[in-house]
């Protein structure tokens, strides 16, 4: 039997594997019926030690769309973790009941602990502020769908680049493609941390630009990845009030943007993208949600070694 593959960090996958997953995701999107029975008889356990609507439902939808079944829990309070059971013991138990596990946990590194003990593949559905690789795969599939490529792109990240794990993870993934330029748009307080800037962007010699002015850089962007600027990240209310509106995307601010730019957002959004932007053809964030289901279908097939 071949070694069990898990997905804990996006960098667990090679560029070739990511490309293959994206290609498979696209084939599934084009003909979902052809895949409707691929996982018949297989069970996915969704272990959500921390609530998440979108991620959990997308995993469940993906497994059900492949003809498989799902079981699990959606909050730690509903699991034996509430009785003090360790992650390792929970995973050993659930490995006996399922063929694949998707888990989210508030503690960073919990999925790695799980993978070490699991006898079935484990997918990290988010561990604290650390990793969220299936969101990154979702982002990559959406970019591929909208732009037709993952290379030679100027990618703008806007908002909270300090705490946004989806931003760090996507930068890590895109840094491995040719011709990528990053434009980092954030207030001083929420700039990309040095372990991303130094260890990923500068170490790979990638061109990048840091700015606080979204509108000034808008014309060069092929992708604009928005994130939420959260009030609780600021030390004082004044700074928050001063900055919050500069990072709200409105039709006005889009005036200078390329006609084929794509706007992405990991969602949920609060007010950082005005609803008036939703009907703009450049808005890609709802297609992103759709992609999330299909890329997870592709990932499940890969980790379960199920041939097309």
């Amino acid at each position: 039997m071949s070694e069990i593959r898990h997905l804990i960090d996006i960098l667990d996958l090679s560029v070739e594997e990511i490309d293959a997953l994206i290609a498979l995701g696209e084939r599934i999107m084009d003909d979902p019926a052809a895949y409707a029975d691929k996982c018949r008889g297989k069970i996915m356990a969704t272990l959500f030690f921390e609530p998440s609507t979108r991620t959990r439902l997308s995993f469940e939808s993906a497994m059900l769309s492949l003809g498989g079944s799902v079981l699990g829990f959606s909050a730690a309070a509903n699991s034996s973790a509430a009785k003090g059971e360790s992650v390792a013991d929970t995973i050993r138990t659930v490995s006996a009941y399922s063929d694949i596990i998707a888990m989210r946990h508030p503690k960073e590194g919990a999925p790695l602990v799980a993978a070490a003990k699991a006898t079935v593949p484990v997918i990290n559905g988010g561990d604290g502020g650390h990793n969220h690789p299936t969101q990154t795969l979702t982002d990559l599939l959406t970019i591929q769908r909208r732009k037709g490529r993952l290379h030679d792109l100027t990618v703008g990240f806007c908002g909270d680049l300090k705490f946004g794990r989806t931003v760090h993870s996507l930068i890590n993934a895109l840094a491995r493609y040719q011709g990528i330029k990053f434009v980092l748009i954030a207030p001083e307080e929420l700039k990309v941390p040095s372990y991303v800037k130094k260890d990923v962007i500068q170490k790979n010699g990638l061109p990048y630009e840091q700015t606080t002015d979204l509108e000034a850089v808008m014309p060069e962007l092929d992708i604009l990845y928005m994130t939420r600027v959260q009030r609780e990240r600021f030390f004082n209310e004044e700074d928050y009030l001063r900055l919050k509106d500069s990072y709200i995307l409105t039709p006005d601010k889009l005036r200078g943007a390329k006609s084929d730019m794509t706007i992405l957002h990991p969602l949920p959004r609060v007010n950082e993208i005005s609803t008036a932007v939703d009907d703009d053809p450049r808005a890609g964030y709802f297609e992103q949600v759709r992609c999330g289901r299909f890329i997870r279908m592709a990932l499940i097939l890969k980790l379960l070694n199920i041939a097309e």
Partner: protein
Amino acid sequence: MNIDSIKNGIVIDHIPAGESMTIYRLLHLDRLDCSVAIIKNVVSGKMGKKDIIKIDSTLDIDLDILGFISPDITVNIIRDGARVEKKQLALPEMLTGVLACKNPRCITSVEQELPQRFKLTDRENKVYRCIYCETKVEIKR
């Protein structure tokens, strides 16, 4: 200043000046009941100033943690008053069970039986990160 030479024991030499107490703490030398001499700010041709620790007992010490403090440290094993072995150190690839992750969101903060492990991620800048949450290791000096 003279410190008596030891008959059977260990001399940890070429410790960067000021780091001997960090080593004393991390190697739990306070728990030993044999003589332990900490010599600080010894004039050294190569290093300017250095610290030395002499332990009057042969015991297994964690060479990884010494390599982490400084790969220039040397460990001399003394038997019958003579040096029988000189160990050169290197930056270890992994540090296990010596330091604890300080990230309150790390899984090790709630599951204390998990082994604390730190991986060398940047040799040039001597950066170690927790294998679970990737938080950079910081030690109290």
